[in-house]
């Protein structure tokens, strides 16, 4: 670690207030409790699980099960390849029981305010619960409120009063009755929008999807054969995505020389996706579904998705009508797009995402954290030197969040046990500025751009491993060098880090 010593000593942390009992909050509670920190988890819902508590109809994990499990708590053997939401919810309940964290979770309690204690030592957390309000002091506060679940994002569309049908946010789509026999128009083009369009095809009279910006799909199996993790989550692919942060002079030279190869690689990937998902233009009413953005950039946009395989088939067969454009306004019997076309609909489903709610952080604190339109830029996606003791777990959007949040929790636990230290304020601020500049240079805008890492997860994990003094190369066995290059990295590769066995193993004999 470079720079002057950090002014904050995390080794004094004995108590932590954790906001949110989703995957992030649970991972933090389990890891910190094992490190000797007394945790209190505040969860405003009546159940743990966050987004997995109660999703839309047929919701589930996008990525295969081996990419979405706690590294030290495998999913049950009989879990389907793509874990359905309710099953994941049960798994999270089992996790809480297995690691004995249920007792520290307070359900139905909303955190309304977080402020630094007047003497600067620790934080005051105000909560509201049915019985009244309360305030509690903690040495550290962990914010694990998630990127996705809090507030449904409902765009303002003129003319809604005139519309004779129903308007739902995707989160309200909990029963087929909402769609049964209806002409449905879905707005959006993320994973939840494609799911909603498929549900409308199944239960409704007509299924339309209105798409402003096309995105590249990630098929579950590349070329219909190879699970996408082999093409996307190995170190080889990570070397051909837009480089991670600042490069050394040598790395710049290597990237310059390799340009034609990298360029060709991505064009071949695009071609494969175009052929596999049949994205090309057909004559007649059919439209090209090829996104404008090159795939290596588009993969980092807000709506990276692994659609169900039947989605593109249904679009091609006309069972789902895809319309390009932006909704201009509601009309009595449907919606009108900015290109003048009208879509007849009696149910509109807004699959327009969610927004986080950081209202419990005062404006002054949000300023200190440097909140901007595209989110919080934090040191290691977790801490800011001007708000010492306030830690974000889960403020990272990746292909395997459960792994990322577990490793963030481990990093934090190691900070508390004193196995690693933060650099000084200047070094942290310089790193934050570097991160901001890098992301803004090329990652498409979104309100959570600051959190986006997607396939750079591997680089991020390497960084966290480097900080805590663990070996970032985690493949083992005689073919480890091959596996390091070609095999996908999965939560199970970090099992001993999550379980805190790694120090024994990696320093054995020292």
């Amino acid at each position, binding site marked *: 670690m470079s720079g002057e010593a950090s002014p904050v000593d995390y080794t004094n942390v004995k108590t932590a207030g954790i906001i949110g009992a989703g995957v992030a909050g649970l991972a933090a509670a389990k890891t910190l409790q094992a490190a000797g920190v007394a945790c209190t988890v505040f969860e405003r819902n009546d159940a743990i699980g966050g987004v997995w508590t109660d999703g839309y109809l047929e919701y589930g994990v996008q990525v295969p099960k081996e990419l979405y499990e706690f590294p030290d708590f495998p999913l049950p053997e009989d879990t389907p390849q793509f874990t359905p939401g309710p099953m994941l919810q049960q798994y999270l309940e089992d996790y809480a029981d297995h690691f004995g964290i249920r007792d520290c979770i307070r359900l139905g309690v909303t955190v309304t305010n977080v402020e630094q204690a007047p003497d600067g030592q620790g934080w005051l957390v105000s909560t509201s619960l049915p019985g009244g309000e309360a305030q509690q002091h903690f040495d550290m506060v962990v914010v694990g409120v998630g990127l996705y679940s809090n507030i449904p994002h409902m765009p303002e569309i003129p003319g809604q009063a005139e519309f004779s049908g129903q308007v739902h946010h995707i989160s309200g789509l909990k029963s087929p009755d909402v769609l049964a026999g209806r002409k449905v128009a879905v707005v959006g083009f993320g994973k939840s929008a494609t799911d909603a369009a498929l549900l409308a095809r199944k239960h409704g009279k007509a299924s339309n999807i209105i798409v402003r910006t096309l995105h590249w799909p990630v098929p579950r199996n590349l070329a219909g054969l190879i699970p996408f993790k082999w093409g996307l989550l190995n170190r080889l692919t990570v070397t*051909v*995505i*837009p*480089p991670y942060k*600042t*490069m050394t002079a040598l*790395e*710049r030279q290597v*990237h*310059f020389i*390799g*340009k*034609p*190869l*990298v*360029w*060709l*690689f*991505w*064009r071949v990937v695009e071609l494969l996706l175009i052929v596999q998902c049949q994205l090309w233009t057909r004559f007649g009413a059919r439209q090209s579904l090829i996104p404008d953005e*090159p*795939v*290596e*950039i588009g993969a980092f946009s807000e709506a990276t998705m692994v659609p169900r395989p039947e989605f593109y088939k249904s679009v091609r067969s006309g069972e789902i009508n895809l319309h390009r454009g932006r909704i201009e306004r509601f009309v009595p019997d449907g919606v009108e797009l900015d290109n003048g076309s009208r879509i007849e609909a009696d149910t509109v489903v807004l699959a327009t995402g969610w927004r986080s709610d950081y209202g419990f952080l005062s404006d002054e604190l949000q300023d200190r954290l440097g909140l901007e339109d595209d989110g919080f830029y934090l040191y290691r996606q977790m801490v800011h030197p001007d708000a010492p003791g306030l830690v974000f777990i889960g403020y990272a959007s990746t292909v395997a969040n459960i792994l990322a949040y577990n490793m963030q929790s481990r990093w934090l636990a190691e900070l508390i046990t004193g196995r690693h230290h933060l650099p000084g304020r200047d070094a942290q601020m310089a790193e934050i500025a570097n991160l901001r500049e890098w992301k803004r*240079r*090329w990652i498409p805008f979104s309100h959570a751009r600051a959190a986006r890492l997607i396939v750079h997860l591997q680089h991020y994990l390497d960084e966290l491993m480097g900080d805590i*003094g*663990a*070996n*970032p*190369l985690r493949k083992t066995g005689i073919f*480890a*060098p*091959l596996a*390091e*290059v070609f095999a996908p990295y999965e939560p199970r590769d970090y099992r001993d880090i999550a379980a805190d066995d790694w120090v024994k*193993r*990696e*320093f*054995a*004999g*020292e």
Partner: protein
Amino acid sequence: MFYTLGTLLGLVTGIVHAVHIIATQSSLPGPNASGQAFYRAAWAIVLWTLFGGYLFSMWVIGLLFRAVFADRGNSADLAKP
């Protein structure tokens, strides 16, 4: 001939990469780090040599096609300091 040239280039790249691996990975945490680094370095030479011809051919094709479809994709151009 073309392929052999690629293989030779692969071998050279592999050696350079191997040196880089030994320099950067010999001090990683864990038991026998330098032995592991040498083992990985050996694999790097094997892999680069094996795939050198293929990669070189793709590099040349990329160079030609990129000149024609230059407006599509610029990921490597993002590699600014």
